[in-house]
């Protein structure tokens, strides 16, 4: 049974492209350009879904992207909005949230229980006794939700793009199009966005029956298309308004983040349903929905219908319906005085009865509440919202079009900070005070008449251009409306309820009254208690009526009630669109590929990729064995680690030494060229942040290293303090520019000396010495270090030569059994040496006194960052201190883990393990722990509790640990 009518001028379907799809097992015909709802409706399918709470059958309501009771799944995707989603050949659709199909839904019984499920019912039950709540909660969770998520749904990476323009216009109706033309003609770049698949706004439905208006649209359309300065984005919505005019435009293909100099919101209005019993039956729809069906999709909304209205729009709807052969039984006008004479007469001329001062008291359901069979019409008292049921008339029909008024699509205006006022002459909120650079035009601005809307668009554009500095005349806009487009209270009380205000959440008039009775008589509290406007349509068709009801309950003007806060998003927006292509930058050292090729187990060390250890191809090696072997190589022969991730900063200038004195805890003024010193950084509270090595390369030049993870922050803080302290210092961050490698172990000198002209003998190059020269033919910086081994050389070369030098060292080391080692072995090696790692062995509160670092703190200097706090801390007793420890020889119990606790004899927490490792070289378990200060003395015993609760004895032990080998 097709409700498709003859081809209409401007229709959005392509009759040359028929297609077939399936809905709830039924074959359905449609055309390219149809939405799911329009195609179904054309095929006589009117039950498009079930409601969220009561599982009532629902059809088309708004047909404007908030029919959230017509959500579908195609088996893959879910919560597809049938009212706007285009059909495609072969789709297999089902309504979501049903049990056994949309018609036979087993959950429809809930509708009959509704008297027992008053507003906020769930707060009132299910919790006594407490143990029963999980049972009920399980039931509630099963009933909750809409569609089922498909866990195999593929991850879509949608592009996100930035775009920039002078004027962003939201809404391509008469006012938006006019605004776009005005701005573009003056040379401004314009982006014009509309969520429909064609531009024109209400010209494509409300006024589509008027040839003159259609001609106007054609003219506007042609002008916009010929304007190079206008970029039109259709089938896309403005998701929200964010600071400094950032508006994400959401298309099916992705998001465009528009940064505009000015924004004009010309988003129009949402039609609001009058509220009467059973206003939700399939077949009862908004007048604008009926017009969209007729004009865009050439679908007859119903065969025999009534129009209930409280404005002139209903009369136009009636004429549109009549023009396509709908038998319009009556126009029921809730206003005592009805409409103006001329439009009333036009309707009467079509043979349509007009009932002034009347309402639909209730719609009467057909069959299993799957449609409407008649309406009960009664005289209506606008002041009391009561119907006079003593004088009711029953009108048979299979559909109702409702036109009682509008609410502004002002979400983005609210988000931008617009103050709104309630205009009594049109019964609508309109902008009272707009933020600078944001403008409103057209119906959202309270301007309804077509010519005036076009003027209003040009006016808004003129104001936007003035804001941008171009002086243009701003003409005022006048409109003459014969009556208010919106009714102040289009609500009909009914003792049996089911007069729905919020179709998302099944909220009836009495729910508001009851909520207010319970004390929730503030609009925000009412929203939270009733959940009005919290569903996926975000109150597009419900908030205005909710405000009107609350205003009447509290006997306050609507303006005093105010509105709830409009949050992004304008329409629900896919997570994949918002996430888009996430960028995850990584840094790679010059030797990265070598590590990979040689079995390096790469991991993310902060932003860097580093090898934890190496398992060369063809070698069967556990991770633990690999680490021990690498460490043994360093102890017994020679090893090399890629240390390029170290922060490397050059400090130049006459104040270089003075700067380091203030920045770090140690002394640098007297440091000799070619010497290195430890550079420890504190915060102002005296907490240890970083340690590195500062080398003096010249009187006015230092080369400072930082921990790998702190390179960026230390450099940044140096820059800040150079500025703050007004010092003559130039900083250069060489972290990425220099590759670094440490050659460590007893044979390291023998390896390095083959490659360099620098004298690396013990006499010429003692520990801590720094030299420059050639290594493997490359300009290099060479330093004796002792972090992982008594004898070790750190070689710094330009990044681009890093791999070359690395290869040269590996080659030169072959004869000595050189092995590369990773960060895991490095951890072990430095532990054997007794070096703590900041932020591993210390935490966000540790000061140098607690970390045995007193010697690095020059308290006699005039100033360094954190010094004043240390002076305070020095007066306080320490309650914990870091110690090195060893487990008993031959320990073979459950090994404690890092962050296992130290437990004292009174079973209190007295510390924790910060590092622990087995050392094959020492054949002992060694570590660092925080313990009470008295337990840091060599030989002090303390107890560590393992994961499973076993107690393990540990002994404080001086480091380096190598003395253990002697015993």
């Amino acid at each position, binding site marked *: 049974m097709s409700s498709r009518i003859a081809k209409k001028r401007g229709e959005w379907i392509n009759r040359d492209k028929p297609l077939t799809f399936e809905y709830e097992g039924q074959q359905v015909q449609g055309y390219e350009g149809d939405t799911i709802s329009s195609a179904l409706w054309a095929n006589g399918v009117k039950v498009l879904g079930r409601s969220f709470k009561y599982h009532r059958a629902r059809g088309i309501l708004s047909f404007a992207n908030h029919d959230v009771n017509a959500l579908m799944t195609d088996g893959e995707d879910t919560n597809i909005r049938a009212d706007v989603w285009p059909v495609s050949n072969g789709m297999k659709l089902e309504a979501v949230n049903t049990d056994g199909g949309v018609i036979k839904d087993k959950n429809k019984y809930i509708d009959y229980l509704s008297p027992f499920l008053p507003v906020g019912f769930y707060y009132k039950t299910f919790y006594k006794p407490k143990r029963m709540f999980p049972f009920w909660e399980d039931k509630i969770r099963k009933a909750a939700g809409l569609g089922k998520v498909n866990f195999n749904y593929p991850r879509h990476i949608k*592009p*996100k*793009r*930035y*775009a*920039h323009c002078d004027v962003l216009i939201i809404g391509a109706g008469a006012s938006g199009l006019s605004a776009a033309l005005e701005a573009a003609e003056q040379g401004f770049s314009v982006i014009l966005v509309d969520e429909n698949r064609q531009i024109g706004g209400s010209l494509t439905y409300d006024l589509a029956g008027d040839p003159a208006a259609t001609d106007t649209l054609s003219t506007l359309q042609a002008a916009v298309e010929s304007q190079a300065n206008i970029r039109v984005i259709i089938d896309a919505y403005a998701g929200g308004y964010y600071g400094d005019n950032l508006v994400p435009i959401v298309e099916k293909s992705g998001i*465009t*983040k528009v*940064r505009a100099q000015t924004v004009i919101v010309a988003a129009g209005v949402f039609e609001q349903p009058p509220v009467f019993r059973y206003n939700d039956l399939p077949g009862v729809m908004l007048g604008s929905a009926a017009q969209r069906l007729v004009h865009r999709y050439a679908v007859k909304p119903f065969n025999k219908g009534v129009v209930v209205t409280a404005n002139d729009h209903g009369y136009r709807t009636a004429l549109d319906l009549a023009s396509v052969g709908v038998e319009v039984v009556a126009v029921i006008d809730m206003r005592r005085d009805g409409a103006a004479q001329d439009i009333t007469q036009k309707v009467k001329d079509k043979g349509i009865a007009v009932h002034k001062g009347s309402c639909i008291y209730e719609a009467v359901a057909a069959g299993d509440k799957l449609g409407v069979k008649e309406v009960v019409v009664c005289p209506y008292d606008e002041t009391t919202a009561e119907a006079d049921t003593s004088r009711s008339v029953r009108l048979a029909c299979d559909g109702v079009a409702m036109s009682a008024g509008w609410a502004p699509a002002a979400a983005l205006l609210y988000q931008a900070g617009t103050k709104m006022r309630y205009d009594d002459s049109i019964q609508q909120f309109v902008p009272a005070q707009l933020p600078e650079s944001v403008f409103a035009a057209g119906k959202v601005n309270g301007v309804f008449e077509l010519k005036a809307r076009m003027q209003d668009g040009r006016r808004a554009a003129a104001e936007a251009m003035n804001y941008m500095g171009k002086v243009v005349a701003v003409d005022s806009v006048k409109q003459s409306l014969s009556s208010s487009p919106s009714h102040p209270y289009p609500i009909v009380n009914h003792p049996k309820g089911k007069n729905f205000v919020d179709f998302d959440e099944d909220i009836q008039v009495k729910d508001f009254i009851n909520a207010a009775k319970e004390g929730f008589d503030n609009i925000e509290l009412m929203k939270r208690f009733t959940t009005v406007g919290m569903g996926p349509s975000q109150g597009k068709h419900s908030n205005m009526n909710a405000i009107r009801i609350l205003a009447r309950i509290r006997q306050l003007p609507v303006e005093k009630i105010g509105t709830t806060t409009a949050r992004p998003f304008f329409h629900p927006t896919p997570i994949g669109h918002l996430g888009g*292509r996430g*960028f*995850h*930058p*990584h*840094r*790679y*050292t*010059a030797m*990265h*590929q070598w590590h990979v090729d040689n079995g390096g187990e790469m991991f993310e060390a902060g932003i*860097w990729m580093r090898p934890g250890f190496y398992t060369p191809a063809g070698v069967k090696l556990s991770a633990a064995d690999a680490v021990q072997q690498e460490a043994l190589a360093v102890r017994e022969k020679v090893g090399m680690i890629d240390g*390029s991730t170290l922060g490397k900063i*050059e400090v*130049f*200038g*006459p104040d270089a030494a003075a700067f380091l004195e203030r920045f770090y805890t140690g002394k640098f003024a007297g440091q000799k060229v070619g010497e290195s010193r430890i550079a420890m950084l504190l915060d102002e509270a005296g907490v240890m942040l970083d340690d590195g090595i500062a080398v003096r390369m010249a009187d*006015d*030049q230092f080369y400072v290293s930082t921990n790998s993870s702190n390179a960026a922050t230390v450099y940044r803080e140096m820059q800040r303090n150079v500025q703050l302290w007004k010092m*003559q210092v*130039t900083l*250069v961050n*060489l*972290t*990425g*520019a*220099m590759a670094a490698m440490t050659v460590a172990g007893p044979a390291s000198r023998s390896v390095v000396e083959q490659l360099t002209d620098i004298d690396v003998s013990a006499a010429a190059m003692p520990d801590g010495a720094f030299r420059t020269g050639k290594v493997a*033919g*490359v300009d290099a910086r060479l330093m004796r270090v002792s972090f992982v081994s008594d004898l070790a050389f750190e070689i710094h070369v*330009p*990044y*681009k*030569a*890093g*791999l*070359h030098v690395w290869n040269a060292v590996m080659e030169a080391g072959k004869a000595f059994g050189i092995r590369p080692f990773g960060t895991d072995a490095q951890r072990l090696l430095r532990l054997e040496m007794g070096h703590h790692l900041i932020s591993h062995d210390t935490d966000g509160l540790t000061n140098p006194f607690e970390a045995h670092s007193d010697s690095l703190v020059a308290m006699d200097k005039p100033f360094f960052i954190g010094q004043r706090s240390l002076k305070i801390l020095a007066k306080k007793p320490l309650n914990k201190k870091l110690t090195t420890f060893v487990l008993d020889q031959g320990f073979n119990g459950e090994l404690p883990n890092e962050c296992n606790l130290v437990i004292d004899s009174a079973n209190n927490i007295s510390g924790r393990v910060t590092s622990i490792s087995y050392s094959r070289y020492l054949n002992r378990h060694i570590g660092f722990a925080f313990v009470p200060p008295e337990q840091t003395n060599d030989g002090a015993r303390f107890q560590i509790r393992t994961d499973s609760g076993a107690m393990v004895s540990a002994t404080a032990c001086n480091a380096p640990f190598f003395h253990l080998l002697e015993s």
Partner: protein
Amino acid sequence: MQDAVLMSPVAFAHALKKPVSGDVNGMQTALSFADADVEATRSKTLSICDVSNLNRFGVKGPQAADWLKAAGIKLPETTNSWTSQENGSLVMRLGNTEFLLEDKPENQLAKTLSDTAVEQSGVHKVLRNDAAFIVSGELTPALFSEVCAIDLDNGSLEDNRLVMTVIAGVSATLLKQTLNGQSVYRIWCDGTFGPYLWKALLGIIEEQGGGPVGFNFYYNA
């Protein structure tokens, strides 16, 4: 190629695309990724080329500008702008007191300056390790719209201006120049981010129907 001592920061990211490689400026370089006509088409659509091997010289400090002028270098007058020397070398003014000079392959200016000892205070040489790219093609606006938040059409790169901004999450320097008669974008970032940025940009470029081109496409090595 085996003899090249130096390595482009992006070298290992190239490997997947199996370029023809060669030694330029002592650096292993991807000379071409495809036949000349394929690369020509790419460069018209959307392409990326690694030119990290070009020689550079960086200098920073309150007296850096004077020192460069004394060495006969023509300097950009305003911060965040660039200029070409007569031999085609680029000089970029990064902020106020820092400069980056980049030679064409046939020039030796950067090397000469690197070898020149600095005898005065307030001039500090900066070791550079840039990953450097050339991006070209008519779809470059589409590429940048995905990876860069600022408006590049709004004259921000006109009149020899350069911008220091974030590209695909990485700090980078960006300018527009004419190379071989073609308008191209130049990108420099810290070399350690080079492989990442190359892959991130190339991924989008390939989605858009473009691809990599080799060094020889722009310069005769």
